[in-house]
């Protein structure tokens, strides 16, 4: 498959993630959409690593994975805290001003 196709695929998945981030109200879906976006970016790294014949891209893909793990960890901790306070994981309940 040509590089263009892979990049196209990455874009599609990325924007599915964006759409999910903007639309779904549950904190879990929010987080999972973010993971989707990160994966799409990862895919791009690997694609261009192959395209340029350079392994550094794959190394960086690996780094991003580790990073995503750390980020998911902390994000989930926040969700747990949030749930303890409000007994809900709906992001709309997180608003503290006005409304």
């Amino acid at each position, binding site marked *: 498959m040509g590089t263009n196709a892979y990049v196209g695929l990455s874009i599609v998945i990325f924007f599915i993630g964006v759409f999910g981030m903007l639309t779904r109200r549950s904190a879990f879906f929010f987080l999972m959409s973010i993971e989707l976006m990160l994966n799409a970016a990862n895919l791009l790294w690997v694609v261009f690593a192959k395209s340029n014949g350079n392994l550094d891209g794959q190394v960086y893909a690996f780094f991003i994975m580790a990073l995503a793990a750390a980020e998911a960890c902390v994000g989930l901790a926040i969700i747990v805290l949030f749930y303890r306070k409000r007994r809900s994981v709906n*992001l709309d309940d*997180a608003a*503290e001003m*006005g409304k």
Partner: protein
Amino acid sequence: MDRTALENFLWIIPIAPLIGAMVVGFLCALSNKRGVFPPRALVGVLACVGPLASFVVSVLVFLSLGKSAEASTLHQKLYSWMACGAFSIDFSFEADRLTAIMLLFVTFVGTIIHCYSIGYMGHDKGYARFFSYLNLFLSSMLILVLGSNLVLMFLGWEGVGLCSYLLIAFWFDDEAKAAAGKKAFIVNRIGDFGFVLGIFLIFTTLLKQGPASLEFSFLAAHANILAPVALTASLLLFMGAVGKSAQIPLYVWLPDAMAGPTPVSALIHAATMVTAGVFMVARMHFLFDLSPFAGKVVALVGITTALLAAFIGFAQNDIKKILAYSTVSQLGFMFLAVGAGAYGAGIFHVFTHAFFKACLFLGAGSVIHALHEEQDIRRMGGLLKKLPITGATFLIAWLAICGIPPFAGFFSKDEILWSVFNTWGLYGKVLWALGLFGAGLTAFYMSRLVFITFFGKNRLPSDQHDKIHESPLMMTIPLMVLALGSLTIGFLGLPATLGGTNVFGTWLAPVFGAHELPSEEHSMEYALMALSVFAAALGIGAAYLKYLRKPFAPSKPHGIAAFAVGAFFVDELYARVLINPLAAISRSFLFRVIDVAIIDGAINGLAALALRAGGAVRLLQTGSVRTYVYYLGGGAVVLMVVIFVGWRWPL
């Protein structure tokens, strides 16, 4: 010591009194905090050390220049003050023969007056502050004299103006005295405006022809470049001199300046600061030489001021005010000389005037001190018996200022008149005649002062009269020294016609270039000398007839005298025409419109704008995570578009 070694010590001359000022000032500040006064003796010694050191070095400088080649100078550069592009100003001192003369008498008279002040200000609670200011003044004056470029001279110029203000308004609790100080400063400022414009004009003219500097040596060498603007530049610079040296129309501050302590009047407003204007013209002689018309203007202003001040002087009743107007008048004579190109004669009169006028002022101070702050001469009289030393020295200085040979004033005044007579043809002769008239007037009003104050019957109540006693040695010794000077210094300028060699003039000649005077016509010169002595005698005689022959009874002045008592109401004229309208404009337009409406409005408007902008931005913070996520996504897309555009259509 040899020349180059001496050059390294030039800085002592202005800096020693500066250090004195700082040390005494520091002591003063310290004591103010604790409410304790520093010991008078210590302050007195500290204060006099600086001027004395300056005097010693000045003497060395004078001797060194006397031995060297005629046009040589001593030069010391302290540091480079400003340097930007083609323009640089150094903080450097240069001493040529003219400077040496100025340094000599400024430091000498300065030191003497410092010593005198120890006695005079002995009971004043601002004792330390006084000496601090006085030292600061001396330092500024010496910077003015020693400065090797126009800017440094201007620095000293401003410095002496500041110190003049500080010292005139020394007893600032009295509102009138404080106002006098302010008046001096403000009127000076008007003159300084012209001075600065002159400097700018000179500089821009020079700059058109390549890199320029404001060093006097540079200016003198490139004087021909300045020829087209010489008239304007010299008149502008002269405006500064008019302010500083109290000529028409900016003389009004000097009589009011008598509100300051008498030593201040003696030092600043007689011997040194007011002569700075004459010095400046002499320094810039190459510029004034380029424009004969400017010289005529200077001479005209000088003689007019001399006459006007003399008229005002003989209707005044305050001893210090009479002396003040006398100073203005004598300054007029000095400008008459330098206007005619006789710079040597003008500086000679500066030199002699310093001695006899300081002596007169210090003597007046002694009288005031003895009579417990009485200054009105109508209440004095017959003081010669009670104050013998003061009286004797005062009389010597009086004869000097009247121009009676062999006292100093005769030689200097006569040289001025002789120079003016021989310059410019008819104009010169007219000015000479006016000068002669002025000399006669000088003799008249000074004699009036002397006769009313020291002779005749005493007009104080007898119990007060008995308590009068001579001033302490600390005050009378300076008087004696200065009187001796007034007696002898004239011989330095003994002209050829009387068998002398005019040491003073020939010593200074290399600086100015020779001012050619006909030297064969001795008979003419004798005649003029005789005429001036006759005029002086006439003045003294008239005063004798009016004031001593019959017992003096203060009478209401009428006619011109009434006008003169009020100083021809010049101050009132200025107030009516200049000051009040200016104040009105300031209050109504400048304040209400520009300050309140425009400036305040702009600032407040800016603040209101910031508030409103903040209020608008605040609306972005909705607190709802949803909107924040929208912002995130939107921002990411914008970034993407920007990168894409930058990639596709690179700059």
